[in-house]
Structure formats: C-alpha cells, structure tokens
C-alpha cells in the first residue's frame, strides 16, 4: 500500500511488499467492511443522542485493523475471541449486521437475548465467542479453546484473540500469553493499540513504547504493524495464522491505530486529551486513506465508491428500522438459561 507520512510509525513488516495477495474483490470487500463499520458506529451514536438507545461504543480508527483481521479469519474454521470495541471485526468475520442492531436496541432477537451491553457480540455458529466486560477476561478462554483445537488435532484451525493496549496491564493477559507460549498454541493475538484506555494514555499503562516487545517474554514473535493499513493487517494476521496452523505457535501482533471518538456515548474525551492530538491522527484516517489508495490503484472508481457508500447506508438504514420494530424480550426471560433446567425452586 502506498504510504503517506504517518504518525503510525510504519514498521518494516508493513512497509515491505505484502506476502499475501488480495484479489480486487477482497480489497473491495475490505473497503466495504470499513465503510460499514464506520456507518454502524455513527448510527449507534446518533441513536443514543436521539434517546433511542441507552448506550453505544464506537470504534472509529479501528476500521483497518478490524476489516483486515476479519478478512484473515477463516469462517467456519477459526475461533474469534473479540473484545467490546470489535463490532467491525465481528461483522467482517460473519456476524450479521441486523444482529448488531438487535443488540443495540436490546431486542428479543439479539443472540444474547438482550442481556449484554451493546458491542458484546457473540454467536457460536459464527465462531464468535462470548465475553464479559472484564478486560482481558477472555484471553484465557481464547488460549483454552486453542488448546482444545490442538488437543483434537484440528490442525487447520486457529483462535484469534483481540484486545486493546490497556488489556496488556491485566494479570490475566500475562497468564494467557504465558500459557500460549509454553504450549505453543495455534493462536494469533492482535492488539488494537489505539493509545487510550478510556482516559488513560498508553504511557500510563506501560513503561515501553511497543506492546509487541512483550512477546519476547512469552517465547513468541512480536510484530508491529500500521493499524491504519488494512493490507498490512491482513498480511500480518495471515502470516501468523499460517505459522500457527503449521505448528509454529502463537504470535503477538500490535496494530497501532487510534481511537477517534470518546470511549463510549457516556464519555467525553475533551476532558482528558487535546483536540489537536485527535486532529493530528485524523489526517491519517484509515477510511479515506484506503479509499484514495483503491482509486489510485484502479481497484475502484470514484463512482464505485459512491455506490458502495450508498449501499452501506441503505443496509444500515434497513437494519436500524427492522431492529427498532422488533419487540423487547419478555420480562420472564430474566429467569431463563442460568443453568440447564430450572435453578433453585424457591427463587
């Protein structure tokens, strides 16, 4: 990918020519996925400001890392262990857009029955694993599932586990990385380093500049990539995936990106970071940057771009309306699916 001067310190891996070719169709799919993610994000915030939903979390700035990772994810084979800022990744990995809106509106048709916070997407049939809001709590689940793949000799399958840089401060993050390294598990760790954990900047999370160097402590390779470049992301995740399926063990990929929006609709980032900082990163906004690259390389025409944007907006509008029209779960649903069968009879 042609590189504009970037604050995202292009690493050698990203600057080098990609090892894995993407077809024009795949490149267009990645771009559509990025557009969809941004449009869904904006819709979540709009619905919140309209008073229609209590909460939404955005992921602007994560489009490239999520669309690229989603393209590398092998549907029907791989297992995805996402975190709460991964709506785009889940959609890029096969989670239906309409179900994102069931979740936002907390409708009965939501796969979690309207129980979970929005953005905690889960769907076993798509290989997207359930997780809580407890940061890094899902990391050990990912390595446990990767262990199960190895245990059953399912050599063509891997687990992909994502998290933010804040998660790397958690003890369970370390424990998961350590076990994955000891057992050489078929797993790819992708750190979506957006530099902010709510209001806490990276330099207060860790004493090092790069998350990726922590990989050395676990006997695995650490890779730094430009998280605004979806091709670099796809390439790195695919390389790590191939290594994992051939018995080479885990990889820690650090995709450096940026969080353009506040943490969630309940946050106000003006209270802890400067407008100038956000704007300086906006110059590298991965969505228009990838759009320019696709046009320059003749993958899409400006007319194609307009048609794609229209189509994405149509999809999001239709999903919004359809989900809004669905009913809430019944109050009696509070009492179901705690354990198999009934829980204690006197509840």
């Amino acid at each position, binding site marked *: 990918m042609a590189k504009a001067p970037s604050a995202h310190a292009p690493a050698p891996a990203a600057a080098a020519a990609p090892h894995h070719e993407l077809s024009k169709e795949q490149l267009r799919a990645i771009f559509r996925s990025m557009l969809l993610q941004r449009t869904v994000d904006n819709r979540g915030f709009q619905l919140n400001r309209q008073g229609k939903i209590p909460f939404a979390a955005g992921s602007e700035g994560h489009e490239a890392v999520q669309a690229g990772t989603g393209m590398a994810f092998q549907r029907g084979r791989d297992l995805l262990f996402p975190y709460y800022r991964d709506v785009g990744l889940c959609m890029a990995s096969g989670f239906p857009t309409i179900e994102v809106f069931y979740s936002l509106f907390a409708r009965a048709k939501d796969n979690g029955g309207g129980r979970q916070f929005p953005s905690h997407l889960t769907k076993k049939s798509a290989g997207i694993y359930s997780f809580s809001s407890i940061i890094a709590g899902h990391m050990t689940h990912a390595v446990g599932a990767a262990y199960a793949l190895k245990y059953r000799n399912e050599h063509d399958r891997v687990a992909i586990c994502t998290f933010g840089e804040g998660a790397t401060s958690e003890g369970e993050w370390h424990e998961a990385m350590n076990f994955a390294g000891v057992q050489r598990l078929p797993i790819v760790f992708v750190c979506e380093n957006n530099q902010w954990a709510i209001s806490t900047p990276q330099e207060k999370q860790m004493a090092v500049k790069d998350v990726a160097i922590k990989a050395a402590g676990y006997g695995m390779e650490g890779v730094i990539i430009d998280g605004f470049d979806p091709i670099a992301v796809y390439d790195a995740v695919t390389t790590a995936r191939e290594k994992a399926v051939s018995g080479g063990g885990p990889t820690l990929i650090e995709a450096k990106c940026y969080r353009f929006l506040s943490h969630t609709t309940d946050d106000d980032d003006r209270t802890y970071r400067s407008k100038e900082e956000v704007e300086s990163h906006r110059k590298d906004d991965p969505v228009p940057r990838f759009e320019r690259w696709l046009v320059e390389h003749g993958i899409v025409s400006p007319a194609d771009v307009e048609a794609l944007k229209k189509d994405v907006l149509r999809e999001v509008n239709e999903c919004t309306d359809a989900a809004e029209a669905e009913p809430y779960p019944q109050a009696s649903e509070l009492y179901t699916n705690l354990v198999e069968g009934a829980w204690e*009879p006197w509840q």
Partner: protein
Amino acid sequence: MAVTTETTVMNNVEAVRTTLYEALKNDSRTLIMGEDVGPRGNVFLITKGFLDEFGPQRVLDTPLAEASIVGIAVGMAMEGLRPIAEIQFADFIFPAFNQIVGEAAKTRYRSNGDFTCPLVIRTPYGGGVRGSLSHSISVEALFYHVPGLKIVAPSTPADMKGLLNAAIDDPDPVLYLEHKKTYRLIKGEVPGGHYTIPIGKAAVRREGHQLTVVSYGLNVHQALEAANQLEADEALKVEVIDLRSIRPMDKQTILASVRKTRKLMIIHEDNKFGGIGAEISAMVAEEALFDLDAPICRLCGPDVPPMGYALPLEEEFMISTERMKQRMREMVKF
C-alpha cells in the same frame, strides 16, 4: 458402565482418585489440569501415575497461575472439552475468583444459552491439619452468593465418587470441595462402576426426632459421633443431615426434618457471619418459623480470618465433638 454390586472400602482420597481415573478412561474430552498434577501426581498424590497412562495433554501441569487455570478451563469447556481444573488449595482460589464468578458462572446466562461451560473446579479446603493461615480455610460462603454456580462438599467416599461423577457430567460449572482432613481419615464402602448422586440432594445420615443438625464435610462425621454418644449415654435422639450439596440447597429435606424435630442446629467450620448457616437459618425462618420450638443455633468457625499455625490457635478455631455434644444437649433440652 452400570453400577456393580461389588463395593470396595476406600478413603476419600482414593474415592476421588478412582473417579478421576475412570473419567479419563471413559471420556476422551476429559482432562485434568492444575499445579503439580503431572509427575508429582498432585500434592496429595490424587493423580499419581495418571501422567504415564494418559499423557501430558490430558494430565496438564499448568503454570503457577490460578486465574488462568480456571480461565483456560472455561475456554476449553466452551470449545467442547470437559476440563477438571484443580486449585491446589482452596486458599489459593482468590486469583481465580473473577474467572469463576464473572466468567464461568455467567457464560450460559450472558449468551442466553448459546455457550455453555461444563467445568469442574476441584479444591481441597478445611483445617485441622496444621495448615495455618493459608492452607486451611473454607471458601464456600464466598461463592455461595453466585446464582448458577453449583457447590458440592461431599463427606463420605461413596458421595465423593457419586458427586464427582455428577459434577463431571453436569453441563454447567461445579465447584467441588474436598475437606482435607477427611482425605485419609474417612473410609467407607464405594460401589464399583459409574454412578452419580444428584447435585442438590442432602442425605439424612441419622434419624431422630428431638433436634435437626445440618452440616457438611468433616463436621458431619463429628456430628454423627456426637449424636451417637448422646443417644448411647443420654437417650437423646438427634437427626443429622449431610447437605452434600451446598448449592442448590436441599430445602425440602431440611424443612421436612425441622417440621418433625422442631429444632434446628447448623454446624460448619467456615466463619459464622454470612456463612451457609445464615442462609439456611433465613430459609427456615421464612418457611417454618412457627414450627420451631427453639431459636435456631449456629455452631460455626469464629469470626477471625482463619486458624493459626500454633496448635491451641487451630484447636480453638475448629469445632470439637465435645462442643457439638454440649450444644446439641442444650438444644434438645430447650
């Protein structure tokens, strides 16, 4: 495998060991994981020899990190294995608290049944073995509050096997508590073959009509001894219920007994305040207050963190059979 009529006398350690062995033998999805379960065969030698027979993938020595022992087991369970995770001593379970309470017990609920977590967490608990501050505590009350988390604490070898089989077969997470002092102290007949004892069913160990004693773990054996002596020496008739499952609680068995004896005493080694006895007392007060002829009595571990290493400190914490006898006598005569 059907239950055979043949029984074998074994202690609680042997009962757990036999059950784990059969589980590994009968189901390739089953694996054992924890600290020092491999070549060492667990610190109480429960898994000794397993590594040679089943290999390191199924008898998995984990890094020394309790949160990940449970967390990794949760991931395995979500992905279709049937892990049996071991926390070496219950005292060390706190780093895994989030994984047990925040993750395992909520997996089915938060995904509305899309994911399940069939997981057994075994851990030795309890004192009277000079275990001091961090090798002798009881942890059940700390997990008792959690909806969906099953907790069992068998006291006899036959129950050790039946409830461990039930826990392994269960489609949801089960915390399986083994009282350390009963490991080699308590022996009994254990049926051969595969059988289960339903989780949530108490056992009336001894019938009587003058007082109901509800207990679990080591204290059950002491309560039986006390009740036997009181009958032999003083003709007092005390009923003793072994809870076996702490949660779900067998409300019916407790209430039926209390309505017969009209008096309730609860004995547990765990601290009194906010303990299992508090919930049983509240349940009986709600359901059967007017059937009672005496205030409910709780004979429990004192409200200090745990027992100390020094013998007098340990003895002061542990409930002696003599103290049980004395309180039982007072309750019957009330």
